[in-house]
């Protein structure tokens, strides 16, 4: 159950971060409703943010494993 809570928290945190960063990029000046070009931008931005998240996860896990294997003698 803890594992599930972690997964849910992780997904929520990702959505929060996507919204923060994509609202910033895509909704330059909030008007009476989201325009269709704002929505298109949000859709693209969401996909890009998720792939950045995947890239960062992979790089980070790879690096932590490498450091643990003792290849560099440094501590993160």
């Amino acid at each position: 159950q803890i594992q599930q809570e972690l997964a849910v928290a992780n997904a929520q945190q990702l959505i929060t971060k996507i919204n923060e960063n994509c609202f910033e990029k895509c909704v330059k000046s909030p008007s009476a409703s989201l325009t269709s070009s704002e929505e298109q931008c949000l859709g693209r931005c969401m996909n890009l943010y998720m792939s950045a998240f995947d890239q960062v996860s992979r790089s980070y896990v790879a690096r932590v494993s490498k450091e643990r294997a003792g290849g560099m003698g440094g501590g993160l």
Partner: protein
Amino acid sequence: QELEGFLEQEQAKAKLQASVHELTNTCWNKCITGGISTKFSRGEASCLENCVDRFLDSSLFIVKQIEAQKQHM
């Protein structure tokens, strides 16, 4: 049990207050990009009026997109 309900309510209030502080900060940075005058320009005022609703719309839009993508997988 009444106490429990009271505490829960106060906790909800604290959370709401924290959200309002954060949203104010976000919308201030989004809408007030120029100098500080005695009152908001027309553009700034309209931006502030719409900022919270568009921010929440944006959040709902993202959630819906994610759910739609999940079903197509």
